[in-house]
C-alpha cells in the first residue's frame, strides 16, 4: 500500500521546512545564548537547594524544559543544514554501527535491539552526520512506538542494482492507514507533548530524498512497523 503524499505537496513542505531551517539558523546563535542563561541559573538553583526539596524540583523542571527547547531548536535547524551538508563518500555500515552503539546507550531496559549488518563496506555519497541522524530518528521512533517492551530490528544490506537497504522494524503499536499517510508530514505526531517534535520522520524523508534515495513503510496495527530506506551506492562495493 502506498501511503505517500502527492509529490508536489511533499516538495512544498520540504521547501517550507528548509526555509524555516535557514531562518532558524540565523537566530540560533542568540537563542542558544538565551537558553544558556536559563540553564545556567537553573543549575545554580539546583546547587543551592537541598535534594528532595520543592525548590530543587522546580529548578530541575526548568532544566528539563530548557533541554527540550534546545532539542527542538536542533531538530528545526537540521532542515536548514541540508544546504550546508558536506557530502563525501562515507561507509554507511560504519555510520549505522556507530549510531546503533549510540542508540543502545539510550534504550530503556525492556526494549531489545537486534541487528544484522552487511559485512562489507557500503559506500554512499552523503553527509555522515545526516546519515547518523536518519538512523537515530528511525530507531527513536521505533522505541516510542514500542513503549515499554518489544524488539527493534535493524537490517543493513546491499541490494541488486547498486543500492544500500536499511530496514528498521519495531514490534510496536503499528499505524492505521490515516496515520501512515501523514507520518512524513512536518509537525505531525501521535506522541505525547515533549516526546516528539513531529519533525523526526519528515527530516529523515527530506535527507533521504535529497540523497536520491527512497523511503517506504509497511505497518500493521498491533503488529509493528518497518521503515525501509534505499540509498544509491557511490561506487563499487568493496568485498573483503
Amino acid at each position, binding site marked *: 500500500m502506498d501511503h505517500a503524499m502527492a509529490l508536489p505537496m511533499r516538495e512544498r513542505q520540504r521547501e517550507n521546512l528548509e526555509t524555516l531551517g535557514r531562518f532558524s539558523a540565523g537566530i*540560533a546563535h542568540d537563542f*542558544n*545564548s538565551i537558553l*544558556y*542563561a536559563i*540553564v545556567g*541559573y537553573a543549575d545554580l538553583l539546583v546547587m543551592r537547594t537541598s535534594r528532595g526539596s520543592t525548590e530543587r524540583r522546580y529548578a530541575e523542571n526548568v532544566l528539563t524544559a530548557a533541554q527540550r527547547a*534546545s532539542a527542538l*531548536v536542533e531538530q528545526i*535547524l537540521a532542515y536548514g543544514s541540508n544546504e550546508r551538508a558536506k557530502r563525501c563518500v562515507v561507509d554507511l555500515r560504519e555510520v549505522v554501527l556507530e549510531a546503533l552503539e549510540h542508540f543502545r546507550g539510550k534504550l530503556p531496559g525492556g526494549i531489545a535491539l537486534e541487528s544484522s549488518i552487511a559485512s562489507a563496506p557500503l559506500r554512499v555519497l552523503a553527509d555522515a552526520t545526516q546519515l547518523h541522524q536518519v538512523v537515530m530518528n528511525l530507531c527513536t521512533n521505533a522505541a516510542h512506538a514500542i513503549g515499554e517492551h518489544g524488539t527493534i530490528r535493524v537490517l543493513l544490506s546491499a541490494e541488486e542494482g547498486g543500492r544500500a537497504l536499511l530496514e528498521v522494524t519495531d514490534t510496536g503499536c503499528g499505524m492505521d492507514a490515516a496515520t501512515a499517510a501523514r507520518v512524513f508530514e512536518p509537525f505531525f505526531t501521535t506522541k505525547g507533548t515533549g516526546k516528539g517534535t513531529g519533525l523526526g520522520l519528515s527530516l529523515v524523508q527530506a535527507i533521504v530524498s535529497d540523497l536520491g534515495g527512497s523511503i517506504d513503510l509497511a505497518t500493521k496495527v498491533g503488529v509493528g512497523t518497518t521503515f525501509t530506506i534505499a540509498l544509491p551506492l557511490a561506487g563499487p562495493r568493496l568485498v573483503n
Partner: protein
Amino acid sequence: MARGLISVVDDDPLVRQTLPDVLRELGFAAEAFPSALEFLASGRVAETRCLLLDVVMPGMSGYALQHELQRLGQRIPIIYITGQTDRAVRPRLSEQGAVACLFKPFCATALSDALAAALRDS
C-alpha cells in the same frame, strides 16, 4: 577560596552575566568582557588561568583572539563556548588548540569537567 581567574569573552550580555555567576559558584574568580579587544586591553590577560571564548563575535572573532594571544606569547588554555549547533566545528576548534568546545546551552557539570581538563593541561 577562589581557584584562579577565569575570563569570559562573549558579545552576549546574558552570557556575560550568567557564566561568571556559575563560575563563582564553582569556586573560581571570574570576569567577563564584551569583546576580544576589551579583554586584550583589560590588563587581566596575564593572570587569566583559562579563557572561555565565544567563537562568533562582531569585530575580532574568537579564532582571531586565539591567534593574537599566541602571537603575544600568552599560552592561556581556551575553552570555546558557542551557540552554533554544527557539531562538525568541534574537531576544527580542537585542531586550533582549544581544550574543549561547549555548545550552549551547556550544564555546570560539563563546564566544570572542561575547566578541570584545561587547568590540568596548563
